Structures are given as C-alpha cells and as structure tokens.
C-alpha cells in the first residue's frame, strides 16, 4: 500500500495574492504531500468540484483579500452537500484574530494567520488528516 496525503491548495474569489499559496504548496510538496494547485480566481463551486474529483484529504485555502468570511463557508457547505465533509479544511493568510472563531464554527479545522510557521502547518495537517 502506497498512501500519500493529497492536499488541494486553493485561492478563492478575486484574491490575486498567491505568494503565500505557492510557498505553502512547495512546503507541502517538500514534506512529501501530493499537492493540487488550481491557481487564482477560483469560485467556491470549482474548488469543491476539484476537491471531490481529486479526492484530496485536505483543502487548504489561502485568503488575503478579506472575503474569507463569505467564500470559505460557501465552500464548506458545497463540500458537505456532496458528502465530502470528511475533508480537512484549513485556512491561512490575512485572517484577523476575531474571525478565527467564526471560521472554526463553520467547520474550518485550523486557521493559520500571518507569519505562521510552515512546519507547524505541515505538522497540524499530518496529525489531523491522518486521524480520519
């Protein structure tokens, strides 16, 4: 058996800042993950469909444009509607402290704000994705 953790790194909406997403994608690759990167300007519907088709263990959303409270919950609902609520959803980027609890309540498993340690993101992902 040759199990690899698969992670979808995605940008939602009109948020073009992809430096963080690319750095995180590389960090996942260097940690042995298979990373599906879908590029910028993605609608929640498209990200959900990609997550399903690729059967990923983890969906990591990078948000720097402030629409995280609108678009991330939309994505989670779409995943749930299709029975993919076992996927680990993570959010990172410019997410104010006070929004974290709202995202966690929506079903985001972990929120990584500015300056988060890449190794910590990897460790968290391994631990929580493997637990499923």
């Amino acid at each position, binding site marked *: 058996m040759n199990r690899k953790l698969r992670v979808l790194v995605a940008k939602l909406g009109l948020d073009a800042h992809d430096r963080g997403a690319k750095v995180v994608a590389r960090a996942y690759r260097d940690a042995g993950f298979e990373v599906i990167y879908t590029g910028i300007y993605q609608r929640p519907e498209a990200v959900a469909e990609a997550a399903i088709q690729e059967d990923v263990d983890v969906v990591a959303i990078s948000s720097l444009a*402030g*629409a995280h409270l609108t678009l991330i919950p939309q994505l989670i609902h779409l995943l749930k509607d299709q029975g993919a609520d076992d996927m680990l959803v993570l959010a990172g980027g410019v997410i104010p402290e006070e929004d974290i609890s709202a995202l966690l309540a929506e079903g985001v498993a972990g929120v990584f704000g500015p300056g988060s340690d890449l190794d910590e993101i990897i460790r968290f992902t391994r631990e929580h994705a493997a637990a499923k």
Partner: protein
Amino acid sequence: MSHQERKERFAGVSDREVKRAYTPDDVAGLEYARDLGDPGEYPYTRGVHPTMYRGKLWTMRQFAGFGTAEETNARFKYLLAQGQTGLSTAFDMPTLLGYDSDHAYANGEVGKLGVAIDSLRDFEILFDGIPLDQVSTSMTINPPASIMLCMYLAVADQQGVGWDKVSGTIQNDILKDYIAQKTYIYPPEPSLRLITDIISFTAKHVPKWNTISISGYHIREAGATAAQELAFTLADGMQYVQAAIAAGMDVDEFAPRLSFFFDVHNDFFEEIAKFRAARRIWARVMREKFGAKNPRSWMLRTHAQTAGVSLTAQQRENNIIRVAMQALAAVLGGTQSLHTNSYDEALALPTEDAVRIALRTQQVIAEETGVASVVDPLAGSYYVEHLTNRLEEEALAYFDRIEAQGGVVKAIEKNFFQREIADSAYRFQRRMMNGDYRVVGVNAYADGAEAKKEAQILRIDPAVQRRQIERTQQVRATRDQAKAASALAELRRASQTSENLMPYILACVKAYCTEGEICNVWRDLWGEYREESVY
C-alpha cells in the same frame, strides 16, 4: 587576539553575503563624472534634481480607499487636512478586475481592499469638494486604467478644470501583473495596445499626467530580491518604451511621463543603492539604447512605498519602527514621493490613527532629522557605491537572460519571472524558518501573550456592498439608454480598428456606462488571459 564574529555568514533580506568592511578596493573602477555625476546631472545616480529636497520635499502620498465613494472621499479630505499633498486611490478587487459590484464574482469583495467604483456617479462622489486643479491624484489600477482616467477627466470637465491643469498617475503597468500582481484581464497584445493608446492620448491632451507607473513594488512583495525587483521593473519599462516607439511615437514625446514605483524593504543600504542604481541604468538605457535627447526622458522619477510584506501581525507596534527606517531609506535613496504603510496593515485596512502615525513618520523625517538638507549624503561610501554597482551588474545580467528568451513578453510566457520570484520567496521563507533571517516578534523575541492581543481594526460594513449595488443598478436604470448603448457599440467598433480608444471610452463613461460593461466589450473581443504556470 581573536576576531570571532557572531555568525558565519552575514546576509540581508535578498540573501547576498556582505563583507565585514568595504574599502577603496571595492569601488576601484568608479569614476565620479561617468558613474555618479553631480545631483541633477547625467546619469542621475545622485538624484534627478540639483537641489532635491532643499528645493521641494518629496510628495507625501498615502494610499487610501475603502468602502464606497462617500467613505473614501471623507478619508481623502481628512488626509488633505493633515497636510498630505497628493491623493492615492486604492480600488477594491472587483474594480481592479473590471467587474461591477453586482457581478456574482464580486460577492464578499465589494469595498474590502479599496473603494468600489462602477460608474462615473461613483467618481463624482469620490472627488466631491476636491478641486482637481489643486491636487495630484494617483490611481492604482491597471487593465481598467483607461476607464478610471476617463472618469477623472469627466469629473474635471464637470468642475470646469482644463485637462492641462490636471495631474496625477495611473499605475497602468500590465507587465508586472503578468509577472507578479496578477490583476490582469486581457492577453498581453491588446493590453499593450490600451497602454499605448493612453500614452499617445495623454501626450496630446493631458500633458501633466503620468501615464505608467512602472512598478517593482508588487514584484518585490511577491518575494523577489532587490536585484530582481530592479531588473524586472526596468526591463518592463524598456518594453513599454519599445511598444510606444513601435506604435509610431517619438521617444521624447512620451518618455518624460513615465514614472516608476519601487518597494522599500528592510535592508537599509541595499534599498538606498537600489534607487541609485535604478536611476543610473535608466538614464543610460534611455540615452544610449533608445536615443532619447530630452534630459527629462533620461530621468527616472519614482514613487516608493514601504514594504507591506515586512509588516508583522505579531507585536504590530514594531511595524512603526520598520516603516520609519524604510521611509528613511527611500528618502536617502532620493524618491520623488512616498507612501508609508500603517502599522496595523498586516491584518486589515488601516485605521485612521494608524494612517496618521504613518504620515507623521514622513513628516518627522522631513522636518527633524536633517536628512532632507543635503542631497545624496551617502555618495562616496565604499559600501553604498559597491552595492550600487553590484545591483547594476545583477540587473544587467538579468537583462541579458530576458533578451535571450526573446524579450519580456516571451519570458512571461515561459514563466521565467514567475519562477525566479517563487524561488526567492520560498528560499526566504525557509531562511526565516531555520532562523537564518530573524524577524523581531516572529522568530526572535517573540512574545506569545502579546500576539494574541485583540487588535482594533477597520472592518467594512456588509451594508456597503448592498448600498453600492443599489446605486449602480439605479445608474443603469436611469441613464439615457440609447446614448449608453450607442457609446458601447462605438467602442466595440473602434476596438476592432487601430483607432485610439480613449475618446470612445470617455464617451462611454460620460454616458454612464459601467466599468463592467466597458470591460466586457473587450473581454468579448480579446478574451481573458489565464496564467498557466504553477511556478
């Protein structure tokens, strides 16, 4: 006696090793007249003006924009009242990407990162009570830059201000969007056509307008080193010059209205050297490569902004100190205008208090430190001159690599820039993680409790989106429909010819066609650009 040093290798943000000390040997080939020149003299290494800040201080220009036009108008007036001398407009993402606020893609983004603009009605409100002949306005927008400029000119008409009195800048730099910022809409060819149309239109009708702000800022913020920022930005600049010449213009007709926009990062001396190297390279390129005769064509004038990417969410008050030192570097580097970031910007839009401190930072530098009294005070420093030479050499080497690939557009298509930048960004992140690069409050002197402190941040009321949508739909419902439709039809027709599009865009704007409607005409004709690379 031992000469033990703290660490084995000393290197700054750009990961270039520096020596313990620099000596005359490090600047051995430097010739004063050829390589530096007096301030205001070719090749302008020491500054584009003989008196520099003794004559006129740099323009203190704080970027502002959020919510609807009403809120941004109030912020503009506040900043002018605080002594700011130029306006700088930030637009929200839907506006930057040519979507109206009621487009499905705009949901959740209206007014978030800047002001939402859909039609001329919004511009009338945005500049209400601000006489356009008395301020200069910078607009950070790219593919729809022509539309925003036309809206500005339409407001000037309403105020009775002649276009020759209007001054300002549109960013209008699409190449750096393909490379780093990613707020593109159309493919390179039609995008460059829009840009040359703007250049030739303003050269004739709006002589004080800066037509492109050739931007390194976003390239740097995306993770580039100082040398990459310098090289890629100047390469973009040369590409625009070539495009305008190819469109039949004389280089001296438009080159004086090109301006630049650089980042100012943490590595103090490297940043100062970057500005000096940029001026020297540009002067030589314009004179020797493009044969410009007008000295104003040789001069690289630039705006600068402190590095947003250097701000930390942890111990955010430290950002005030970072910004102050970056601002000082920009001034010592001889910038023409400066935006200082607010210390709370790592998390959200800046609050009014934070914006005031940022502006005061510039005022302290200008009034209290004495650095504005002497032009290019670091000239002759072995270290600074060595850095200036080194950055120039690195940039020239990059020019060769870009040329070898067939130029900037081809290199973009081959993802050359994108890969170079992503590599640098990743390397930097790794250096931070292994402690090779230390950031106070993040991987050094961190303070867990402090990081959790609740920040006072500016939030955009969700009602902003609703109000903006209502206004835009009302504009669409109440305008002269026949006039709007025929203006759009004319624009479509002209876009398929080689006519200058500016008069047609202006007609659309004045007929209250929305930004989205205008952009859709071109989406239809030209298609949309898609980035095809991962790295």
